[in-house]
């Protein structure tokens, strides 16, 4: 029986090699279009860019009354004399995807400058383990895993290899419970902060509990109530790798710290949260400036009125907000290296 098994295993291996060849030739192009459109779009965008802007929905989200619907990157691009800033915008993406996409740019590419948005909220457990993460991750499968037939098998059969949205939620809850905040914060963990805030409630001027504001305050705490451990944080690892890649490829790299609604965070959850946001910003800004990366820091640049979403934490700006952000970026890009 053993010889029979061995012979068949050999036959099966040869068959799989042949099937992989067939798949790469005939099946993969179709599947990339269907399951990895983000990767194909990045390849197409990066092939025509010299200045590349990587961002998420903050780039192009507009308010209903905006008279100018241009994105941040388009507004910044209009202020550049010779170059055009071409954007790659994909909702909910972050440093991990930017790193892996940037690695795809071929050596002979014309790209010489890369702007990578740094969204402070993307460092929080709520984004690191977002419900959207598995579907974004799935888009990278066919582009990254070799042999392609194995990648396709994992795509079809490996739904549980990726964290399910439910598992992501469990991890988030655990991280919030374990998150150790600096000693001068009002609570030792994000979970306790959130729980106490929820129990105490957010009180208006008449000392009446407002449920909507309480929920929003708790959400602010969960979104920004974290401290960054530079040795282990996945975002730091990815931004470090982007900085390293840029050095190797001789790209001009700009990290663009996006505006956050820090004033509302302070009004709802207290000055300690705003302080924590500033400390985290300082940490990442200093870390990358020390590595020679240009950092445009607009964390506190916008007033509450420049944020579109008032009932959630987002980086979606009104026309004025986008313009302020774009002006700062354009100024940096126009400056000499």
């Amino acid at each position, binding site marked *: *029986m053993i010889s*029979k*098994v061995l012979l068949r295993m050999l*036959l099966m291996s040869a*068959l*799989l090699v*042949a*099937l992989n060849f*067939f*798949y790469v030739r005939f*099946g993969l192009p179709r*599947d990339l279009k269907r*399951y990895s459109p983000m990767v194909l779009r990045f390849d197409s965008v990066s092939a025509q860019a010299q200045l590349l802007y990587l961002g998420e929905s903050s780039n192009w989200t507009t308010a209903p009354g905006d008279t100018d619907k241009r994105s941040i990157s388009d507004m910044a691009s209009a202020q550049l004399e010779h170059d055009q800033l071409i954007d790659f915008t994909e909702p909910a993406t972050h440093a991990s995807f930017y790193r892996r996409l940037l690695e795809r740019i071929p050596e002979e590419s014309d790209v010489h400058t890369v702007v990578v948005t740094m969204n402070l909220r993307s460092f929080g457990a709520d984004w690191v383990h977002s419900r959207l993460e598995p579907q974004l991750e*799935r888009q990278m499968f066919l582009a990254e895993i070799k042999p392609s*037939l194995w990648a*396709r*098998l*994992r*795509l*079809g*059969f*490996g*739904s*549980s*290899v990726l964290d399910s949205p439910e598992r992501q939620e469990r991890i988030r809850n655990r991280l919030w419970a374990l998150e150790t905040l600096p000693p001068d914060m009002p609570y030792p963990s994000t979970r306790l902060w959130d729980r106490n805030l929820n129990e105490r409630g957010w009180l208006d001027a008449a000392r009446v509990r407002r449920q909507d504001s309480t929920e929003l305050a708790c959400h602010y705490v969960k979104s920004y109530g974290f401290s960054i451990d530079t040795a282990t944080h996945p975002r730091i690892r990815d931004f470090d790798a982007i900085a390293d890649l840029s050095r190797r490829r001789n790209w001009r790299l700009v990290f663009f710290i996006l505006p956050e609604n820090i004033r509302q965070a302070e009004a709802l959850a207290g000055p300690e949260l705003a302080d924590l946001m500033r400390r985290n910003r300082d940490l990442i800004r200093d870390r990358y400036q020390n590595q020679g990366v240009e950092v445009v820091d607009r964390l506190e640049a916008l007033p509450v009125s420049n944020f579109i979403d008032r009932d959630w934490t987002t980086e979606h700006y009104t026309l004025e907000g986008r313009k302020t952000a774009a002006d700062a970026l354009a100024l940096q890009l126009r400056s000499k290296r």
Partner: protein
Amino acid sequence: MLFDSLEFLFFLPLVFGLYALFPKRSRWMLLLAASYVFYGFWRIDYLGLMLISTLVDWQIGLRLSRSENPSRRKMWLALSLLANLGMLGYFKYGRWIVENLNFVLPPENALGLPDVLLPVGISFYTFQTLSYTLDVYFKRVQAEKHLGWFALYVGYFPQLVAGPIERFDRLSPQLKESKSPCWTDVSAGLRLILFGLVLKSTVADSLAPAVDAFYAKPNDFGSTDAAIAALFYAFQIYADFSGYSLVAIGSARLFGVELMNNFAAPYRALSIASFWQRWHISLSTWFRDYVYLPLGGNRASAIHWARNILIVFGLSGLWHGANWTFSIWGLGHGLLYLLERRFSNLLSKTSKFVRWLGVQVSVVLLWIWFRSPDAQTAYNVFSRFGQLPDIPRLPLDSVALWAWFGLAAWEWGAGTQRFDELVGKGPIWLRWSIYAVLIYVLIAFSRPGGADFIYFRF
């Protein structure tokens, strides 16, 4: 653990390899441990429920075998029924019962809804243990003295979560034999697993999006879409469940265990009676042996016989889920069965094609009740058929259409022959060409994030 997951694709060869290496006398321990890992992978706390069911029925089986006192034996049987059906009732029907009670109770007396998750496979292993207790009670089998062997009978992983529902006298001796792997079993098992996975991951999962889109908002579609969705669902559920059963049968076959066939070309049936001899055979025979025959079967007056039929079909519908739509589906089949018997002379004079068409159209239309989450949705779906045919708007991709036609052709061409038997007869070049095509189809056309097995909900 799901059959269509990477975990299972690693788990099965690992268990098989260890099984081959283990000495014969301790193989049952490996299989039992593997079965609990398989089940606990999904949710470890519900493993406790299965252990309770195992312990209760093992103990009751022993006590039944030791006692000759009829009233005492009845008491032990009642206890087993209470424990098994109580557990099933609480986890599967508790919420539904309370909802129905609240419908008739005044609002101020409304009961709180129990917040429980249906443990995967509970309907299957509960019926399996019930059949054991009933068989011991009626002295059809000897009680199992060894807890380990009994636990393996209840928890045997290939058929644990969605059947086939095996009887003790059929499965247990095979498990005890601890047969050493042989090439005939291994090749047949692998063929079945391959074909079962293609049915589930390629055929059923590619039909699912169109069906789901239609049932999410049936009023947005016309009669053509309603017909397509009905036909697609008939094939989706067939491919899904028969695919699962084939993987189960194939996996067991690797270990030298022959599980019963659960399907035998149901869409070729020329009568409702024949359909039920071909669809989910392990459940139909369970209801026949443990409900229909004890009720008197056909050895009763016409009225009582009709009552027995409707009870069996109604319960069979309700077994699938806590929803009136399932009961309507079951009772619909029961009524058609009775009509078929009533007009059997007339039907025997009609052509085979007309009979086949009548049966299959009825089956497809009754699936609408099965698939609809509530009666309103079923009504909305049926009302679509009152409209004139129009251009389909459902998201139909080529893979779904190929899958549908492929399965229809297989059903028509292969008939009741199983894939492993049919392909196993061919020359090696043909067999390997078929494997190559199926492996390619399985990998390249499986739908990412495909739906769970439909019968996991039951």
